[in-house]
């Protein structure tokens, strides 16, 4: 589609306008400790620093002071059995600096996970116990339907 093509920019041309951008951005947990106003993103590899800045400012309304990007090499791994090498995709990381007044800490998404799991396991155990009781009760009369005895 003509409007979806990113035309090459030459000096003097009018500014590019993309109507339906296809870029993706992931907010990722930083591996190293960072200042509170710096956020790490994994972005589409074809995105430039200007793209990242515009994307965040125009779509997410996040104020951006500075963007630094690098392309992280995907991990290579040798297959244990056949010895061939596989490689994961390269990914562009963008380190976005917001104004000093802003702060962002990556939230802990799985804080309640253990609690939830415990609850589920408990209900599972209960239903298991109920079924065992039902089997025990009907041991001497096989083939009786479940509704036969109360």
């Amino acid at each position, binding site marked *: *589609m*003509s*409007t*979806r*093509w990113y*035309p*090459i920019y*030459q000096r003097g041309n009018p500014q590019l306008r993309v*109507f*339906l*951008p296809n870029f*993706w*951005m*992931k*907010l*990722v*947990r930083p591996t190293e400790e960072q200042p509170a106003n710096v*956020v790490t993103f*994994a972005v589409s590899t074809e995105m430039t620093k200007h793209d990242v800045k515009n994307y965040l400012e125009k*779509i*997410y*309304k*996040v*104020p951006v002071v500075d963007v630094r990007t690098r392309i992280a090499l995907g991990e290579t791994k040798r297959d244990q059995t056949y010895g061939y090498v596989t490689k994961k995709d390269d990914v562009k990381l963008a380190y976005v600096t*917001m104004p000093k007044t*802003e*702060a*962002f800490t990556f*939230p802990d*998404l*799985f*804080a*309640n*996970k253990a*609690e*939830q799991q415990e609850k*589920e396991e408990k209900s599972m155990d209960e239903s298991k116990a109920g079924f065992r009781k039902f089997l025990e009760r009907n041991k001497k009369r096989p083939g009786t339907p479940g509704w036969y005895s109360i």
Partner: protein
Amino acid sequence: MSSTLIKCLNLAKTVGTVTFKSLLTTPQKQLTAWSPAANGGLLKCGMHTTSPVRQERLLEFFDDPKHWSENEVKVGRAWKTDELRIKSNKELHQLWYILLKERNMLLTMEHECNDKMEIFPNPERIDKVKISMDNLETVVRERNKAYHLLETGETGERPQRAVHNAFGLRCTYKSCEHALPPFMNTKWIKSRHLGYGGRAVHKFLLQYREKLYNAKRKAKNRSRNEVMMILRRNPNFDLELLKRKYSDVDIEKLRRSDKARGHFVPKVDA
């Protein structure tokens, strides 16, 4: 529209922090009621009616906190092309950004789940968003094509042409913009003089074509054998159906063949 305004007013009362003016200027407000089949789950990004502080704006990259430790997040289906065709260009444009935000959110959640060795609930949500975006693009493309055809007589699509590649095989080349015109691009001109008439390429092409021919031959034999076996087991099979299904097989000829006859003594009319 008025009902949404009333809703927003009520919201403003309950929240208390936002002014009525800021609500009026929020463009996403009217999109809260948007969802293909009263699902509401797929398009969560449109739900932010309050103007959040900065920290919360980045939280748009994350799912609703109540879904964080869930094992299952139920959502509706993807948008269909027919539903998108009746939307205006402006609405489609807004919906594109909603879907974009939703996809970013899902990708972020998936990444974090993978990092923490947790199960990402309902990964098909990503596919649904992708299908919606593809459908939306199809609709926009249809409109674009119609407009271009009306105004210029051309489709406005990316131009394509058939070229020979380095192996002498024909393939389609999709044109793209270049900073230099062709006659100035000496590097490209030099690269064009790579011939494909060498011995190695000839050998490759011979074997490549043999492979293609074998595939074709085997497919032909396979369908021929299938027809013969069907005729052998079911002598009164519907021939019209067979002809429709195996259009490349000469069924009349096969009927007369010995293999299609079956293991029985044919009836001889007295």
